[in-house]
């Protein structure tokens, strides 16, 4: 256990921040350019995972377990969101036979 955290600490913190930021940005771009609701949803999960990674890194950096506990909360939340999100998507797919977000523009102006 000691050794793992030590070797993690061996890599500068900035690398983690950069890596997470890049993954997070990939997620954001995915949300932005994809039109399929399921893929958008997957991109959001990617964003959450980038956050998880960063939290773990910080947690080790500060030698404080609360960051890792926070990761658990995020994972639980992600599961709940998956359940709700997929349910909503199923409902919409039943009504429209599509998961393309562009056909959803009845409500506007």
């Amino acid at each position, binding site marked *: 256990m000691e050794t793992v955290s030590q070797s993690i600490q061996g890599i500068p913190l900035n690398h983690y921040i950069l890596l997470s930021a890049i993954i997070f940005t990939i997620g954001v771009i995915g949300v932005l350019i994809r039109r399929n609701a399921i893929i958008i949803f997957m991109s959001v999960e990617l964003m959450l995972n980038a*956050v998880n990674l960063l939290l773990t890194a910080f947690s080790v950096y500060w030698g404080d377990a609360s960051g890792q506990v*926070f990761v658990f909360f995020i994972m639980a939340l992600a599961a709940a969101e998956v359940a709700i999100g997929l349910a909503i998507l199923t409902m919409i797919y039943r009504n429209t036979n599509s998961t393309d*977000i562009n056909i*959803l523009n*009845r409500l506007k102006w």
Partner: protein
Amino acid sequence: MSALITITILALLLLYLGLFKAKKALLPVALIGLMVALVLSLMEWDSNAAPIFSNMMLYDRFAVAFSGITIFLTILIIALSKDYFERISSNVAEYYALILFSLAGIILMVSYHNLSMLFIGIEIMSVSLYILAGIKKRDFASNEAALKYFLMGAFSTGILLFGVTLIYGASGSFDLEGIKQYILKDPTAVSPLLYTGITLLIVGLSFKVGAAPFHFWVPDVYEGSPSLISAYMSTVVKVAGFAAFLRLIMFSFAPLQDFWIPMIIGMSVLSLLIGNVTAVYQQHFKRMLAYSSISHVGYMLFAIIALNGSSDNAVFVYAAAYSVATIIAFGVLILLQGQVGNDSFDSFNGLARKNPFLALTLTIAMLSLAGIPLTAGFIGKFMMFSKALSSYHIFLVVFAALNAMIGIFYYFKVIVAMYFKEEDRKELIVPVYFKLVLGFSALVTIALGVYPDFIASLI
């Protein structure tokens, strides 16, 4: 804290009442339970509160006041739900339970002392609301509202979490006190991570309260959701979002005012402009209310711009005034949609002749939202404007006052339609529950307007 536990148990209880087919008991049990929770939460009024649960929560006066008002508003809204959910489907118990679960999340949001609790509160609330927005399964508008809310909400959650993480990275703590100590240690040499974190956190919270330019979900979701849920979202949820926002900023980020005040000013101006100007052209009451709620966020942000000891009071009064008036508006809207099937301004024509009581309460609500004196709305606006002026944001106030004028224009459209336009129409049937809630809310609005003293310096 007992309020939170009561509400959670109440939600589970309702769920099981539904399982055992005790449908008649749902509404009374929910109302009584909420009243118990209200009393319990008010009993914890204590000016020397200390953080509890290993510094996770702090049930101070701020928390008591805001959980009190949110529970109170929820009682009013649930009282309007008589026979409402039954028309949608048979899963009535689940709907009540979901509302209560989201209320539990809201109680967390107003009493957190640790960013993890803020996050959990927001998510408990949001996840319940994603479902509630889409409970009309066969209705395309409801579907669309649910999906839009969900996608954008999930996205904003990601942003919020990234902000929380960066703050943690900079300060090494999720605790509000810890973050504050870190900033106070040397406010001039704070890590850039923290600044980015604050920005992203502000973005995430602005999304939840619906401040421009993060407001885009508001009109569509409010319009598409079932009206009762829209009422809940535009009152209780908005108040809670604001309380969470204010709590965070007051507790932890006050020393970095110079950094975030310009951002909030920008958002406030944009919210006022977009909310008011866009509302002018709307032809439908519900969508107009949605836009106007954006503009009210703009006014409420004044309290954060001019942050000092009485900001919480100002927000509290404004939020109470705004919410009570909005509940009246949505109450009338629900009746109208249910019995006329339309909520365009034309469908209000001649309402004063057939339903003088409804027309009167709605007039009071509109006057309050427009900020005419002797209604609660005026007190709210007065407090907000004088706050902004006390920190010398004169141009902001002038701009806001101009916007308030535009606001009067579209609120009066409703009054004009009700009183000054003739049309043959059938009388709307107003159930007793509605009469009680509308009459009571109208009374509260007037009472606050005439004698606001008893809540104006509460916190």
